[in-house]
């Protein structure tokens, strides 16, 4: 559903940033900190990291911050005054990958499947994604196995693909994207008649998704499988926190004397106490069950309930796992099991 195709000169990015900022938007773009790359607010395009396959953290924090106030309150004598957050600032995420862009729909499916999470929705509504398609991939990437691709347009407002000249082929995909173009029409030139495909990374399909989703419900009871896969799992939350589609959260109060805030914080189903009752009873007492929950949730439950897969194949979880839990490898094993 491409509205139009344009050419964005590489040196126009800086100008585009200026226009976006002038429009009152904050720009989040990949910025290097040591060996790691984070989406951070940038003042200039020159601050951006030059070359990367994937950022360390996904851009989900823009719509689902790792710590956000649900509301603030003030005790006045015995009365309580509640104050909701103000409207979030319009934000442009620049330089995210197509897999990341695809994750917004997954997050949205959770936050609006039944009860409508207004805070998430307004953050999402205020966020525009200028995605840059992938020219490189590594062995952890498997977007093509889960319905995505290095040049996929899902979830992006504008998709940029760097072509031979170093300039970007810009696909304006949504009204939001169009609105950004309207801010600086002069920067968007006529698109050349180039096929973006040849500039995209090649990501082979690694497993049969259909087979996997079919086999998973049955695999649930295969304790040995989960145990074998997860013996080395250390039970940290790194995979969940770098994941663009993980949405589990915790609600925490913090207060200082009479005033306080109710916070929503990222949580991970891999933590041993994620399901623990106050009584000490824990429905998922061992790590293999928590690993199973992670896999089942993403590839079976999500599918069933939200009609989305809970994974975009970005590979971050496997790249960052301190114990080298390779999700792709384990999915393959399940999909190919007889």
């Amino acid at each position, binding site marked *: 559903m491409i509205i139009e195709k344009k050419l964005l000169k590489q040196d126009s990015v800086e100008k585009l940033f200026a226009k976006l900022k002038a429009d009152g938007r904050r720009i989040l773009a990949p910025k290097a900190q040591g060996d790691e790359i984070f989406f951070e607010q940038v003042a200039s395009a020159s601050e951006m990291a030059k070359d990367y396959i994937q950022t360390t953290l996904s851009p989900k924090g823009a719509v689902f911050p790792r710590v956000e106030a649900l509301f603030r309150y003030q005790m006045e004598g015995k009365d309580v005054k509640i104050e909701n957050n103000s409207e979030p600032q319009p934000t442009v995420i620049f330089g995210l990958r197509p897999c990341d862009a695809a994750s917004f729909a997954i997050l949205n499916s959770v936050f609006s499947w039944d009860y409508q999470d207004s805070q998430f929705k307004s953050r999402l509504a205020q966020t525009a994604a200028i995605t840059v398609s992938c020219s490189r991939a590594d062995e952890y990437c498997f977007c093509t196995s889960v319905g995505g691709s290095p040049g996929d347009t899902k979830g992006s407002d504008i998709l940029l693909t760097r072509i031979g000249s170093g300039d970007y082929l810009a696909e304006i995909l949504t009204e939001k994207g169009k609105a950004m173009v309207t801010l600086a029409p002069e920067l968007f030139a006529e698109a050349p008649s180039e096929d973006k495909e040849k500039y995209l990374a090649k990501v082979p399909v690694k497993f049969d998704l259909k087979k996997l989703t079919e086999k998973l419900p049955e695999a649930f009871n295969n304790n040995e499988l989960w145990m074998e896969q997860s013996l080395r799992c250390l039970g940290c939350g790194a995979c969940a926190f770098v994941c663009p589609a993980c949405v589990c959260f915790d609600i925490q109060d913090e207060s200082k004397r009479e005033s306080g805030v109710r916070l929503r914080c990222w949580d991970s189903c891999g933590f041993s106490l*994620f*399901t623990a009752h106050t009584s000490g009873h824990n429905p998922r007492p061992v790590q293999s069950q928590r690993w199973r929950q992670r896999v089942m949730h993403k590839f079976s439950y999500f599918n069933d309930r939200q009609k989305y897969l809970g994974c975009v194949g970005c590979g971050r979880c496997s790249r960052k796992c301190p114990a080298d839990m390779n999700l792709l490898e384990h999915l393959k094993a399940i999909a190919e099991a007889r």
Partner: protein
Amino acid sequence: MSEPNIYQPFLMRIDKITEEAPLVKTFKLVFVNDEEGKKFQFKAGQFGEYSVFGEGECTLCIASPPTRPGYIECTFRQAGRVTGALAGKEEGEIIGFRGPYGNTFPLEQWQGKNLLFIAGGIALPPLRCVIWNALDLRDRFKEITVIYGARSVADLVYKQELEEWAKRGDLKILTTVDPGGETPDWKGEIGFVPAVLEKADPICENTVALVCGPPIMIKLTLPVLAKLGFSPENTFTTLENRMKCGIGKCGHCMVGKYFVCKDGPVFTLAQLNQLPPEY
């Protein structure tokens, strides 16, 4: 933001506090904002997120029946950070409440049926809601039987209501305490709930059974019910998984693909048998 904040609780004033048992209290809560109170509706079996500002939220069922509008009640045992803070609250103080959440007991479908309630310890509150609901609409149901047990006489909750129910002629009530938990003047049964149930031998025809209690009690009661002829479809219970959001988002309460907070907390035994053992 155009839509309301689903995490923003109603402000509730603690109207009355009843000490039920050691560390167990019941709060009667009224809406600070009358308008909200008038609009508020719920059904038996539903729960809410109760919050102490500065400490956090905890999940508790609504223990009062929907037939008595204008207030809600919750009964809790002081255990963690939030229930501990709740216990420190005074009449007149304000706490937060979000809800009602979750599914309900299908009371409409139970018209003309016998109701058998089986509860243990601190798990009576969800059933108490249904019991009062049924009593308030007494003519819709046939026989109502309550079997309730606790470790000791002191641990029984709703002591006054138990007496009140015992005095009513329109329901049969059996209260029991574990052997050794009786007091000298204890007039109820002595023994574990499954045994009392078996002895009571309720009829299973046209009867639904509602069971709530500690895991061990449930585990031992279900076979007795089966023996008595209750089908899994007619046996109901509630699950109490750890919850944070209560509205099917945070992921904490998942049992298999189900959210206890959305698809539960009320399940039939038939449904439970289909669930993975993650509760």
